[in-house]
């Protein structure tokens, strides 16, 4: 029988990151995935002469040489090398302010440039936006203090981080209003909200300002050759460190010795192990992959409290165009099209299949050789909040719905940018929540985890990390774990949990 120190189930972002960390610490590590590729969402696929990225927008928290982010530090520590391309601007957003006036803003990176641009778009916003960036510095310092692994002293925190303590218990909208930020500035500031899946009136301020920090101050990066390049950088390092990976291998059940996990039954046989890192939504584990009597009561209550509010679902439309992007006339890497700049209204609209929200990514604007000479690749991201519209689709109508998504994207570009893409489409492919469900196996196909409402914020989940891991010998990693979703969060979450598992192994303890 195969025997490993640590088995990692699910080779998505958290899994591959955890795998490298475990192997780097000399642990005998097995990584399994039910699909035949690593990366989960961080992958690629080929149509004709084009390679497409299924999901990447902008990778946060990498950072430049002089302001390295957590992702960069983790990758450098673990020997992960990727040729990154820096995204020069935060975003362009074409929308409608809630007072009905049109919005078309392009926000640059860097504190001063961002503040200046905001003042240009919303005269009178300078003071509050400057305050926001000052507060960001305090948040950064507080975060460093809180996450350094030592106990937190409340007196020290009150002295050094009073503004953090006074703001970070609240939702973002409330804090920005308390800072007297003009409504239009709040709406420009809120463009990134779908990256966290929750409107401003729910998402915790600490989480939001932290995200603004990594995007505005550290700048986003993207891989030169699709996310599969990143995933392979992790995998090659993992193999180099002696790790083993089994693909097309499904974890069927976790095996227990008493109340501690001692192995995994997989479609390629039983594997014994001391620790499991499970990159699977916990609800699936509790419902289908372990004895019911071992499911902790608190997890059942948590399940009820969360009310199966899984986070955002995606439909992606990928297009390869037979003209260079300059000739098509798209200049920006990332353009957000919104129906409304009011995140709450937009979130409600996302229940509908035909909502107005769309994110256009144009890879060749930053990477001229992303596709063969004379061509370009773009992708659209449509988001959906909880509703059963996708659930009702019948197989015979499925392709028509895919075509509807394509039509909507073509129409959005025509309406918002005045460009007709139809003559140029050489390849087009659509991924729906069903597609994500097929490849990721996540609830309703969300690439994300659970929603992050005020009561269940990342910060609240992180205040006592061990509460998140009530099963001995098993830690939940990935988008549904404590850190929330997204490439960076899941890489970092995988890394942290791997370190905890290694520590348990060395000390003979369990979480």
């Amino acid at each position, binding site marked *: *029988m195969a025997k490993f120190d640590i088995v990692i189930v699910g080779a998505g972002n958290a899994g591959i990151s955890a795998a490298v960390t475990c192997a780097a610490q000399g642990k005998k590590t097995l990584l399994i995935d039910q699909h035949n590729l690593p990366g989960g969402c961080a992958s690629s696929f080929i149509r*004709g*002469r084009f390679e497409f990225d299924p999901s990447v927008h902008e990778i946060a928290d990498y950072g430049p040489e002089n302001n390295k982010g957590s992702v960069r530090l983790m990758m450098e520590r673990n020997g992960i090398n990727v040729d990154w391309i820096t995204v020069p601007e935060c975003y362009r957003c074409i929308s409608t302010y809630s007072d009905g006036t049109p919005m078309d803003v392009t926000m640059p990176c860097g504190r001063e440039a961002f503040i200046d641009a905001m003042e240009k778009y919303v005269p009178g916003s300078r003071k509050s936006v400057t305050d926001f960036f000052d507060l960001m510095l305090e948040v950064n310092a507080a975060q460093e203090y809180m996450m350094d692994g030592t106990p937190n002293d409340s007196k020290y925190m009150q002295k050094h981080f009073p503004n953090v303590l006074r703001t970070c218990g609240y939702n973002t909208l409330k804090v920005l209003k*308390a800072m007297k930020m003009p409504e239009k500035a709040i709406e420009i500031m809120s463009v990134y909200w779908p990256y966290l899946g929750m409107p401003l009136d729910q998402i915790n301020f600490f989480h939001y300002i932290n995200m603004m920090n990594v995007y505005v101050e550290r700048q986003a990066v993207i891989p030169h050759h*699709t996310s599969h390049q990143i995933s392979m950088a992790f995998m090659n390092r993992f193999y180099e460190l002696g790790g083993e990976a089994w693909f097309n291998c499904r974890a069927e059940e976790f095996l227990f010795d008493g109340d501690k996990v001692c192995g995994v039954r997989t479609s390629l046989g039983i594997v014994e192990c001391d620790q499991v890192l499970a990159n699977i939504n916990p609800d699936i584990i*509790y419902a289908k992959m372990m004895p019911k009597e071992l499911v902790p009561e608190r997890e059942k209550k948590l399940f009820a409290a969360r009310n199966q509010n899984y986070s955002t679902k995606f439909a992606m439309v990928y297009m390869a165009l037979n003209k260079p992007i300059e000739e098509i006339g798209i200049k920006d890497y990332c353009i957000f099209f919104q129906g409304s700049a009011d995140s709450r209204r937009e979130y409600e609209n996302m229940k509908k299949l035909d909502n107005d929200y769309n994110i256009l990514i144009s890879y060749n604007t930053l990477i001229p050789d992303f596709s063969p000479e004379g061509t370009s690749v773009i992708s659209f991201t449509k988001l959906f909040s909880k509703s059963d519209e996708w659930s009702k689709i019948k197989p015979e109508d499925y392709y028509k719905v895919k075509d509807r998504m394509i039509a909507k994207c073509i129409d959005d570009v025509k309406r918002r940018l005045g460009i007709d893409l*139809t003559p140029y489409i*050489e390849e087009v492919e659509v991924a729906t929540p069903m597609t994500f469900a097929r490849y990721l196996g996540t609830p309703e196909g969300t690439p994300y985890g659970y929603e992050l409402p005020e009561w269940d914020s990342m910060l609240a989940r992180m205040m006592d990390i061990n509460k998140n891991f009530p099963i001995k010998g098993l830690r939940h990693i990935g988008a549904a774990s404590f850190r929330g979703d997204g490439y960076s969060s899941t890489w970092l979450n995988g890394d942290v949990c791997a370190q905890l598992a290694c520590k348990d192994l060395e000390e003979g303890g369990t979480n």
Partner: protein
Amino acid sequence: MALNIKVGPIGLLDMLKFANLDKDRDKVINAAPAKEITANFPINNFAKSQHPDYQKFVIDEIIDHTSAGAKTFVLKRADGKTASYFRAGQYISLKLPIGDSVVSRPYSISSSPKWAFEGKVAVTVKTNPGGFAADWMLTNFKVGDEVIGSEGLGNFCYESYRDANHVIALAGGSGITPFLSMAYAIRDGIEDFKLTILFGSRNEEAILFKKEFDEICAVTDKVKVVHVLSNEEKEGYEHGFITAELIQKYAGNEPYSIFICGPEAMYRFVQKEVVKLQLDKKYVRQEFLGATKTVWEQPGYPKEAKDKVFKLTVKQGDKEIVCDCNANEPILVAVERAGIKAPSRCRAGECGWCRSRVISGEVFVPEETDGRRWADKQSSEIHPCASFALSDLTIVVPGEYF
């Protein structure tokens, strides 16, 4: 610090709110009832039904096309459920239990997508020289036999936002099958485009699906079939091969897309003809070529490897199998011959389902069927269905679910 932000009227309460985030979360959790945890989602069920690990079929009917040297096998889901829905033009990968091996073969589906609701799909298999699996099926398959198959796969389908509304199909031999499915789909109102098929056959007698196409063309004017006979001159038929002139003759003045499906020799011929039409790449689509049968003729192949037999070590999970690997055949063939159930679908280097890792040894990947991802080419990943051993090899293959 000058900054002094308060959210609530009294800043101290704000601090308490921060400190209590964890306790407040506990309160919400504790107030909820302990509910049995379920994980049953319609979206996931949909994905599973359309993309099952495999479908088990029984052969429901065999239609003999004697003069064309072909048979149509009508497969029906063994569990009585509807089959995974597919798009006209897609193929199905069949797992054939030949001897001690399970050999996979891709076959374009020749039936209407509508049949899926009755749990049925049809594939048409034509005898061909050296066609080991085809001949095995033609000889051995009988009604009632069980067959494992995939869902509909591949992207050789009409897409209204990409293709011209008029599709000119260039078909040879059993390459007609995806176009029959498309013709049915048009007849059944599932697809909506104009399809003109230029279908090359040896002579009138050898034409596959003549009756079926005649029936379809009688009820829809969107489908037109032009038979091109290479060995026979006859009234009502084109004579010779599918040339650029012939394509232009039937194209009319509207924009058109060309779809090509047929045997390798036909690809090589019509590709040269299509080039003359100077169409944009977007308007020319081609079904998989298939892995080469003469790898030693490929550019860059080290001739000294030809005819050699290497030692192949295959790891799958914690199993390890050692077998021979003939340099002239794709590595996947050696894996199958050794009785290993390894994944594969298109067998043309393109779909990537057989993606495996080389731990040691050298391989040759012909460029024209190298469908690997960029990062895989830089790493040690190969598609064994279109990769050839140049030395003793150790590879890791993924599992397979059937």
